[in-house]
């Protein structure tokens, strides 16, 4: 039988001490990041903003419809490449249970533009504007060919 060595106790204390130190540093960092993210938040968050933007359109659209989607053909200055896709996702998220398809081959087409005054004529060619709900949100009908 071995007697408890001084080394064993020291090693155990070092081990447990490291865990404690790790946890303390991690917790400070965790809280710091969370506080920083909260401070950097623009009010309200983007999804809530989108929900409010599409609220009126949602009431106009028939539930369980499938609609098309058009948006600005060009990205705005400084906008990331994934941003147009994100704007489409947010539209789908806000309009559920309506299914939004990323094309203009449906009888009804939702327009999501940066500005109501700046409709992109290229993407809306052949579409008839039914409702302009403001804030860049529009509803089109596919014109019969």
């Amino acid at each position, binding site marked *: 039988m071995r007697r408890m060595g001084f080394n064993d106790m020291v090693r155990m204390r070092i081990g447990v001490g490291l865990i404690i130190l790790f*946890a303390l540093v991690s*917790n400070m960092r965790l809280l710091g990041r969370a506080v920083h993210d909260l401070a950097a938040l623009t009010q309200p968050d983007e999804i*809530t903003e989108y929900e409010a933007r599409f609220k009126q359109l949602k009431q106009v659209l028939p539930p369980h419809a499938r609609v098309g989607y058009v948006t600005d053909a060009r990205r705005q200055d400084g906008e990331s490449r994934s941003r147009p896709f994100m704007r489409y996702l947010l539209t789908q*998220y806000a309009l559920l249970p309506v299914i939004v*398809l990323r094309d203009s081959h449906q009888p009804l087409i939702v327009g999501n533009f940066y500005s109501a005054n700046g409709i992109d004529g290229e993407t809306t060619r052949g579409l008839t504007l039914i409702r302009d709900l403001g804030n860049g949100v529009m509803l089109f009908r596919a014109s019969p060919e």
Partner: protein
Amino acid sequence: MNLGLPASLLGSALIGFLVIWCVLGPTRVWQCFLLTGSLALGLGLGLSSALFFVWLCLFGAPSAAFPVAELALVLLLLGIALYARKVRHRRPAPVSEAQTIEIAKHPMLYLTLWLSVGCGAMAFLLWSATGPHGEWDAWMTWNMHARAIFRGGDHWRDVLTGLPEWSHPDYPLLVPASVARMWTYMGGETALAPVSVGMLFTIATVGILYASLSILRSRTQGAVAALLLLGTLSFIRFGASRYADVPLSFFFLATLVLFCLHEAWPAAGTCPLLLAGLTAGLSAWTKNEGLLFLLALTAGRGWVVVRAQGWRAWLGEARTFAMGLAPILLMIVYFKARLAPPNDLMSDQGFRETAARLLDVTRYLEVLRSFHKALFQFGDNGLVGLGWLLFTYFICLGLTGKASASRGAKTAAIAVCLMMAGYAAVLLIAPAPRLATNLRSVERILLHLWPATIFAYCLLVRTPEETTDPSQRMSHA
């Protein structure tokens, strides 16, 4: 104030609790309340989401009658539990070996644990306030599916299956169905529902890790494990983001814990394995990765048990495990066959395409590079990465000589290693556009296995008590 949310949370917790009560018996439930309580939180959410899905399939829409039906089920389970208590022979549950070990006093360890719990909870709440809809994948996939179910009404199938491919309508429904179930209780949508699901799974994962190791090894070891998990920044971050990664990690951990408890509690017979079957099935109901876990677990457990006790013992275990697994697996098969479109990772897997990907050396290098990077950076808090910390702690404390701990740890370690290999294989054969996306999320893949890895590690490493108590060391000195 809308009482729907607390009622739905209470309902799911009661379902989980009563199922555990019926299977394990009241004595053990009360004796190990933190363990069974944590297990009940996750199991209850999983089972109630499954019930909600069955309701939708049978009756067609989320309706106000569902809470009434669930209440009837709770009363039925309560009746069964009380009846079982009456007829059950009152066998005193054996006190586990770990409880006889004198708990070394480490006030700083426990103080830090409480501090970590407080910081974790605060950070979780702050992040939940920052993004009430969760992060990218959370709202794009899980919340989107929950909305499709809830807003879809009678047409929920059409809305869910009609969602575009990028929303992954083939993903299992544990998280979306849980959220939609809460909204059904409340009669409307609120961001509090997904926040509650994320929070409960995060709490339950920490709780079950601490409680199981306190039973199987020692309380100090449980505290070390909990500190390691709470100190992993991405664990709290992804929990608050409302991704399904933390719920998945909960079910992986719970399954492995129940296998260990099956060994530690011989008097409980094969009952813990029945629950292990349920939790393993619910992992596959959370994310597709759960199906891979079923394979890894079967292989890992089979290897350990067959080598130690032979085929018969393994078949006996497998039978009880399958009894728990079967109902959930049947539901998943129904979902995959009738509702889910083909998975985008698996749909483009013809022999020629897959063979070409497997023969592409650059893919191996890419996958290795991402795993290497993620492993070394995982849990890095600016001071040290978790890999280095675990290595140093192991050098300081050494390996345990306890045979039971080693057997349980072996199952967990083999399952974790097979899962890693499986994840790497899936990445290797992924279509090119998906490969780039998935390589960026290797950290999340590691998080699935992280609580189970800590569990296996803490089973294998000596406890502080074993290191300093000569009588504890005698067994392996």
